[in-house]
């Protein structure tokens, strides 16, 4: 089947019900999207589907044919996005494993709500788990990213 990932078409041979996560990681070879739970509990596998944040671990690959899939690798092909710069400026990461998912969730939030309220940030970002407990800096970085994006817009 045909898959459009980060603006590029891929021909993949995979069963229809294979989760998008494993197609991305094991067939397309994009390992930035992470496996954490396999049941849409942790958000480590978050990618964008036509701009919406989805859990690739429970998204059958057949359901994304003809739609645009964006992964962390494709978030900002020309250098770092405002979100990624904010993540670095706020020194968010620790082990870093959950962060691609955190960033993809934040990117979808900021695309929909360029100036999110604290409650909107908490609501959106509570879908993603971080065992290192980087939450305070994630909150700060989402706000910083909104500022940075506002400045360059």
């Amino acid at each position, binding site marked *: 089947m045909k898959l459009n990932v980060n603006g590029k078409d891929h021909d993949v041979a995979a069963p229809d019900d294979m989760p998008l996560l494993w197609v991305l990681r094991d067939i397309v070879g994009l390992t930035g999207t992470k496996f954490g739970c396999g049941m849409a509990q942790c958000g480590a596998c978050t990618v964008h589907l036509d701009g919406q944040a989805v859990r690739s671990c429970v998204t059958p690959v057949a359901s994304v044919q003809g739609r645009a899939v964006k992964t962390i690798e494709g978030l900002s092909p020309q250098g770092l996005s405002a979100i990624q710069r904010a993540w670095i400026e706020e020194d968010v990461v620790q082990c870093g494993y959950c962060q691609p998912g955190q960033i993809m969730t934040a990117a979808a939030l900021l695309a929909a709500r360029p100036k999110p309220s604290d409650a909107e940030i908490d*609501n959106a970002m509570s879908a993603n788990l971080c065992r290192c*407990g980087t939450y305070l800096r994630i909150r700060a970085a989402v706000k910083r990213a909104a500022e940075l994006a506002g400045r360059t817009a």
Partner: protein
Amino acid sequence: MSTQSGLSRRRFLKTSGALVVGFYVAPRTGLAAMQPPAAPALPDPNAFLRIGEDESVTVIVAHSEMGQGVWTALPMLVAEELGCDWAKVRVEEAPAAPVYAHPAFGMQMTGGSSSTWSELDRYRYAGAVAREMLIQAAADQWKVDPSACRVESGFVVSGDKRLSFGKLAAAAQKRTPPATVRLKDPKEWKIAGRPTKRLDSPEKVTGQAKFGLDVRLPGMLTALVARAPVFGGTVKSLRAEKAKAVPGVKAVVQVPSGVAIVGEHFWAAKLGRDALEIDWDLSAGADLDTQRLREEFRATAGTPGTKAASAGDADAAMSGAAKTVEAEYEFPYLAHAPMEPLNCTVRIGPDGAEVWTGTQFQTMDQGVTAKITGLKPEQVKIHTMFLGGGFGRRATPTSDFVSEAVQVAKAVGSGVPVKVVWTREDDIRGGYYRPMYVHRLRVGLGADGKPVAWRQTIVGQSILEGTPFAPMMIKNGIDDTSVEGVADSPYVKGTPSHLVDLHSPKKVIPVLWLRSVGHSHTAFVMETFVDELAQAAGQDPLEYRRRLLSEHPRHLGVLNLAAEKAGWGRPLAGGRVRGLAVHESFGSWMAQVAEVSVASGRVRVHRVVCAVDCGICVNPAGVRAQVEGAVAFGLSAALYGELTFKDGRVQQSNFHDYPILRLNEMPDVEVHIVSSSEKAGGIGEPGVPPAAPAVANAIFAATGKRLRQLPFRLA
């Protein structure tokens, strides 16, 4: 991008365009497990840093990066003494080799909150020795005395002459290393000691960072293992026809831990495993039941155990006490649940084996792999990948997840690289838990309210029994990790008559250290019980602790700082109340004041003010991050963490029934660092122990209810 050893070294040579010269020699090989290397007086800088003609300074880090920031802290130490430009610093993970053995523990490993303090001298000396060799090289070239030269941000300078490190590296490498060098006083530090952003951020925010799970090799297959549903179970019979019929399944092999299904990718292996039909011989493991364990441990707590600490005659002193206070505490088994599920990739060739994984125990893994494959340890190459969290789970004395992957690769044969992946369910149900514990206490108070008699019995499985650490860390029948935080507690030591004893019942459940180890339960007992004693003595919890800790200045230092910053004693709005806790662990002192409200039986932690004394502090930004994260880790255990058994089966399986704290539950955390020139302590773990008791003490202040079980049950 800076990544792991070996592969990236070759890539660097190929692609950077820079001829790599200078401080690099191939790591020495040959390893005897647990054998401390014969350390030279000064470390060989060749093993720890490399200067490129492009002026890059690559620091080779002997510890695993699992989020604790060692990829930043150790390079800061090198850069401080070397005098290089911080912007030119790169990082590379060390291969497994004796030269990278832990300076204090003698084997290559990461744990015990020791990465920074244990390397404080070695990495600084490596930088200082290299600096002296660069200076000598420049002085020779200029025909001046080395004492007329100094370093300045990547250059050696003398008068108006300047030469860059990159230009000097080749000549410097030929110099004889100095016999002695002087390290800077930390007061002179320009790089170390200042809040510094992490060096691994760029690759971690772009998805480029390679964790164990991200390893991809030509011809690699992926395996899942069907393990017994109860601990100690074995395969009685196996029908694999349906599994083998799943498209993409390549092989089904039996290994000591169960049955491995090997597929062309994860999904094939997963569907194959679902289709396997196995009859298990469950043996005794099927009898495990949390309720029965609880009753057994509680009964055991009423009987005398092995003495862990004692002074005077506790029973006699108890009978003469003005007042006695008693309590019993219970803690469940806990899973580490790092965000990256366990995994390990192995390729076995005729002349050697390679292992790619996120591990905290390279030396153990190398030894175990050698044993299974019949190779020599030096024929086993360990590629330490980034760890998607460790918390102790990737430091198993049995190398469980590595040895299993080696067994699978061996069974598959033909040199095929195999990645064994654990699902989240495998991870939660796979054992190696923080043990369940019961504590029973009876303390007698004198007329002045201070303890005069202290009796405490602890019951819980030994983490170290049966491991290579046992001879070193189990003394007189006492596993130190079961009693740390009690046997050495200033409250216990300060009580004239005391007796602490321990029972270590043997159970089939594999147990392991989890972030803060024994302190994960002992601090809760001590700090909530002392709150009860304060109440019994009719004293303010802060004042009472000040009295008991009057001869412990570092406890008092953090206690007073946290109380002051939190505004202890001042009224709070919005139904909030405060609780506090102070505890020493891993050579650092930590006090926390929690602001909590309780509404409709639900606990909300709003703010946690932390004061920490970790001695000399290398990266204050890293310390803050560790303490913030430790509070989150402690709260996860306090509010949610619990594994239970029924008919031998672990009843939890994934984050829906083994929850961890989410962002909307994260309190504001303030971290105040005591300025100190004392010996550096640990920081990865000490923030965990006080979090739960500080919150529990606040809940008591709010509700009048004493919580003596984790996770909290308010109903």
